[in-house]
């Protein structure tokens, strides 16, 4: 297989991953690394670099669509970014010093969890509740538009959310993924932000977190132009297609398909990681 064929196939695979990621709202980054490492025999470190670049592309491209809707909470996002960016740099530092097989095992476990989340995730709706002292001092309480008019919401459990965000950042730097799912959990289930606010704020944060890891990856030589090129373009175009698809089709079946794909990747990633195949 020469570079032209290799690039075309990687482009098509990334297109598919970006499409599924956007159409299900789960992000495609998590399948790019296993796709490249298992499907194309790419060293996991190059795969992580390419994946991270594609994560930034989708986050920045989607931002212009999201901000118009007025859902995202910039204050919550920025405050939590302190946790995710420091976590990302710490994670990327760890990634450069542990073996690829160890990374693969952690990756496999994250995939198992993502698969579960993709298939069965439920979200608790935010209870209006009472204002939390710390969240109020940090001016995080806000409002968002709904069909029934503007609804006010209060943020709670800031320290808990901050802690989960540090872990999300660390995983992003360690594995070269966006950690979108974990970010949504921190905001949706721990801090009890409305689901729409959590997902759009998470999208904003994913790009910033990934940029923090990308700096380390770039300096360590993980970001290869020849490999990142088809991945970035594929994921970018795939996710643009997927966003439109999302508006037209029910995502229930897609989520199940995605869950099965991720689970299969998880099993192979764990197997290869444990048998030292990386």
């Amino acid at each position, binding site marked *: 297989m020469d570079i032209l064929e290799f690039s075309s196939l990687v482009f098509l695979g990334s297109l598919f991953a970006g499409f599924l990621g956007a159409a299900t709202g789960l992000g495609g980054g998590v399948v790019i690394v296993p796709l490249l490492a298992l499907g194309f025999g790419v060293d996991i470190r190059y795969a992580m670099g390419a994946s991270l670049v594609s994560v930034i592309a989708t986050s920045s491209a989607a931002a212009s669509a999201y901000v118009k809707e007025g859902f995202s909470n910039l204050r919550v996002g920025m405050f939590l970014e*302190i946790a995710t960016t420091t976590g990302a740099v710490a994670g990327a530092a760890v990634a450069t010093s542990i073996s690829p097989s160890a990374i693969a095992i952690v990756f496999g476990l994250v995939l198992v969890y993502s698969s579960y989340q993709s298939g069965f995730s439920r979200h608790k709706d935010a209870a209006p509740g009472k204002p939390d002292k710390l969240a109020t001092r940090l001016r995080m309480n806000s409002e968002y538009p709904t069909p029934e008019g503007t609804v006010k919401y209060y943020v709670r459990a800031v320290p808990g959310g901050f802690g989960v965000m540090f872990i999300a950042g660390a995983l992003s730097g360690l594995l070269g993924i966006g950690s979108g799912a974990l970010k949504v959990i921190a905001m949706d289930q721990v801090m009890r932000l409305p689901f729409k606010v959590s997902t759009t704020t998470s999208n904003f944060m994913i*790009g910033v977190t990934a940029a923090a890891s990308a700096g380390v990856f770039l300096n360590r030589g993980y970001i290869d132009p020849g490999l990142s090129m088809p991945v970035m373009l594929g994921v970018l175009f795939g996710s643009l297609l997927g966003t439109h698809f999302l508006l037209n089709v029910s995502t229930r079946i897609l989520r199940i398909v995605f869950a099965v794909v991720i689970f299969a990747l998880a099993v192979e990633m764990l197997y290869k990681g444990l048998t030292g195949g990386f």
Partner: protein
Amino acid sequence: MEDKKNGMSDEKIDQIIGNLLRIAVILSAVFVITGAVIYLMRHGAEMPDYGVFAGVPKNLRGLREIIEAAWQIRSVGIIQLGLLLLIATPVARVLFSVFAFLIERDYMYVVFTLIVLSVLLLSITGVII
């Protein structure tokens, strides 16, 4: 209400930032596609070699070296410049947020945003790690 007296609402700022991000992504994609066409024409028939990690050559890791490589119409340099631009878009977004919070006179968040910005800049310039 608070926003009105400052003449610029959060939404307006968000919209400007959103559009700037989109332009940056498009520009980055243009660089990557241009580099890709040259890359595939020159190296398309060679064999890919990603199985063993050696790390990207040193001249494709730093800003100055990447610009130099792109200037010499080296395909990988042009792609890498596009990727660098892409990595810079979230940084620009954080930078704009500093100004947005300054306009709102929310100095607590100016400080928070500056912390995030410094972590990003330290990481990208390779000062930490």
